[in-house]
């Protein structure tokens, strides 16, 4: 038996080694489609025309445009479903035609009536023509399903299912109440929620009144440049080109997004040529990659803001001078240079750079003397506050805890002692939402690329979002925010937001720390990877 065991061990080891020797170790550039002739993946083409992206996609729960609201889902659905209007590339200031060739907003007395004329010759992947009925079905479907992103239609745009009408095969008329912003609605339509599905096909897939959501969970029915080939849960999603796409044919025939949660593995795979894009690298890894053969690194703007919320219901944070003192004492440059290794911008207003209405004014930088004077003006010598901090890594790549410790030392200089309490984000949010935090370190990203998506939550107490969580009830500024959302003239609107953001900068309960930068590792031959700060890239314009 002893000898038998030894033999078995040897045979087992030999089998493994032979298996190892049989072929190169997962090197797509050396093992193109040849070994995959019988596989569905093979139809995506060889490695030369498939972009392999290593990314943590544990947030992926659906590929249905009416459901997706997670980073991975949005990235994929954006490339599968066309929208009526769109932003092109990284520009978030100019709305361009999508499925609609033109659109027009009319003041119809009690409503805004928005008319969209569809382009001709647009087809879904099934071959069906894109019609106004498909648009109506898609938007009504999103409202009916009422999943995570639906509030953009129902709350922000105050859209009702019956207000979406097809007046002929290529014309859609949407009526919004006068309290909603047509400008904000157009930006919402660029998002995946505005993705148009093939109503004829989806209706055949409906089961039990689910509007086809079981089918669209992991299949696609759109008119975008790509279709969903397969989604192997916890492993990968493969997109293939849409044979009926009306636009320019994409250079890459396949986009493979692999679930690789560990950033070290992503880095290794990128360097070995097993991945073309590494999505979740740390600033240290990006630095390590620089100068290495075959790889390049790139950064892109994001629309996130990392900030500290100061609960104005909790003394001494109810004193505007104390809040100003806390803002004044922080060493913002130190955080960006030392902790983020430069992967962030010094933004102190509540609207990030890249959106209309962004306020570049950044008057605060570690002025201890001025901060002490403000504390004195507030008659506060010393204060002790709880500081809630998420676990893990903050946008921009520094540990949340490192940022918290840095702030703790900055504030100690003006007599404010903070007790750092680290919690998983879900626990922290439960406390924060209930107005129970004192100081809370967290980040915010707009739901749609419009200043209203930040100004509303940060100023309107009644919206029960960020202003509410920090107990800041300033009715006057909230009204100014609501008014600004409805201004149609861009110049006048920008001027209104300047007034609002200047006011919040010195009076609001926020210490806006920075706007993080996104980091990507790429193979050197990957071109056209232009990441939009809303959270996607147009795969159709990527080459390798």
């Amino acid at each position, binding site marked *: 038996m002893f000898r038998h065991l030894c033999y078995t061990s040897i045979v087992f080891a030999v089998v493994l080694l032979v298996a*190892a020797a049989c072929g190169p*170790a997962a090197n797509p550039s050396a093992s193109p489609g040849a070994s995959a002739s019988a596989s569905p993946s093979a139809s995506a083409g*060889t490695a030369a025309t498939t972009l392999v992206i290593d990314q943590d996609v544990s947030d992926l729960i659906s590929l249905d445009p009416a459901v997706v609201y997670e980073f991975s889902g949005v990235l994929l659905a954006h490339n599968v479903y066309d929208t009526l209007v769109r932003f092109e590339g990284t520009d978030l200031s100019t709305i361009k035609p999508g499925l609609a060739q033109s659109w027009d907003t009319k003041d119809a007395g009690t409503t805004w009536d928005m008319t969209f004329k569809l382009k001709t010759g647009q087809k879904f992947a099934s071959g069906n023509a894109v019609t106004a009925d498909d648009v109506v079905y898609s938007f009504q479907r999103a409202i009916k399903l009422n999943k995570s992103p639906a509030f953009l239609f129902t709350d922000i745009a105050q859209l009702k299912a019956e207000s979406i009408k097809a007046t002929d095969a290529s014309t859609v008329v949407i009526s919004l109440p006068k309290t909603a912003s047509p400008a904000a609605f157009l930006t919402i339509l660029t998002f995946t929620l505005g993705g148009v599905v093939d109503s004829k096909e989806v209706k055949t897939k409906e089961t039990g009144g689910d509007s086809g959501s079981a089918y669209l969970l992991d299949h696609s029915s759109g008119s975008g440049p790509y279709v969903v080939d397969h989604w192997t849960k*916890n492993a990968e999603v493969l997109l293939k080109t849409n044979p009926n796409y009306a636009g320019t044919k994409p250079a890459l025939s396949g986009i493979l997004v692999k679930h690789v949660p560990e950033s070290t*593995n992503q880095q*290794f*795979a990128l360097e070995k040529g*097993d991945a073309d894009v590494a999505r979740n690298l740390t600033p240290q890894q990006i630095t390590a990659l620089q100068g290495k053969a075959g790889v390049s690194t790139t950064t892109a703007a994001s629309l996130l803001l990392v900030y500290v919320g100061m609960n104005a219901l909790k003394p001494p944070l109810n004193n505007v001078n104390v809040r100003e003192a806390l803002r004044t004492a922080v060493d913002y440059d130190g955080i960006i240079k030392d902790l983020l290794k430069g992967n962030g911008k010094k933004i102190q207003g509540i609207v990030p750079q890249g959106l209309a209405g962004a306020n570049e004014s950044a008057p605060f930088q570690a002025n201890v003397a001025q901060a002490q004077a403000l504390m004195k003006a507030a008659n506060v010598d010393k204060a002790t506050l709880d500081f809630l901090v998420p676990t893990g890594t903050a946008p921009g790549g520094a540990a949340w805890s490192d940022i918290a410790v840095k702030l703790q030392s900055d504030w100690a200089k003006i007599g404010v002692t903070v007790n750092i309490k680290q919690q998983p984000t879900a626990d922290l949010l439960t406390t924060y939402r209930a107005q129970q935090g004192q100081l809370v370190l967290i980040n*915010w990203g707009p*739901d749609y690329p419009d200043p209203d998506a930040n100004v509303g939550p940060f100023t309107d107490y009644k919206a029960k979002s960020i202003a509410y969580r920090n107990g800041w009830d300033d009715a006057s500024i909230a009204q100014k925010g609501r008014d600004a959302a409805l201004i149609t003239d861009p110049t006048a609107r920008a001027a209104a937001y300047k007034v609002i953001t200047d006011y919040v900068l010195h009076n609001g309960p926020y210490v806006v720390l920075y706007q993080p930068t996104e980091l990507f590792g790429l193979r050197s031959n990957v071109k056209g990877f232009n990441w939009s700060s809303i959270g996607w890239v147009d795969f159709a314009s990527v080459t390798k």
Partner: protein
Amino acid sequence: MRFVGFLLRRVVGIAAVMIGVSVITFAISHVVPADPAVAALGDHATDAQIAAFRAEYRLDRPLPEQYATYVVGLLHGDLGRSIRTRRSVADDLADSFPATLELSLAALAISLLIGIPAGIWSAIYRGRLPDVIVRVAALAGGSLPVFWLGLIVIGLFYYQLGWFPGGGRLDTFVSPPPTRTGLYVVDSVLALDVDALRSSLIHLVLPSLTLGYFSTAVVARMTRSSMLEVLGQDYMRTARAKGLAERLIVVRHGLRNALIPTVTVIGLTFGSLLSGAVLTETIFSWPGLGRYATASAISLDFPAVLGVTLLAAIVYPVANLAVDIAYYWLDPRIQRG
């Protein structure tokens, strides 16, 4: 007959364990202060959305009612719906468990095929070079953290040498074989798919060595010490006095007696393999239960956490049952009761 009675007692025991585990896990998972609806919907959700979500998942009902609903579903084979993935937990488990089982079985095979011969070798050559080698290797195996070991192994064998792939279950452009068992090695053999077999075997090497190193070390040390004890017994001297061949003495008289404590350890380490799989799966991008459990726990996905716990609660007693059956075969005294 006695064996059937023994089996029945164990099955009843497993059922009792399951009930206990479900009650305790359910209670613990519902006393954490955070709200799973907030975890699922995030920072931007409105109060109305959160309320609707809580109603959809019956999180707004009293705890005993939630538990009763869960148990009734369980008796109908329904493990509930995952809060994170919004899919049936049973479907999620069916997707992820085979990957973990395949990895754990490969790691177990490695620990038996390497650990037992190494332990015997070490005992026979006690105090000499082979013994020193085995003991040092076993000491390292018992003390290296899986996470660190995994990164080192990937760094060396994938990144530096390029001998093995760095993660996943198959090469990028190889498709999985048609699902019969969910174990890619078995399924690719059944489908006569050579590419998938080669690819799945090669992908198993690094994660199963990483995961199996600790249990290999434990098995080797236990086999060594019990072999040493057995080798000094009177019946071994008798066997030698009878003039039996040394190989026969070691295997038939020595190993069979020495295996009993080793088998106990194997049962216990199978449990540790499943828990070790959590880290190993993360490092090797292995789409298994460990990664599913971690992601579920982080997002306070109670139905998924309960599903994983119940599955583990079945696997542990079943592994122990296998150990007991092995005792039965190894030691006639146990059969006599």
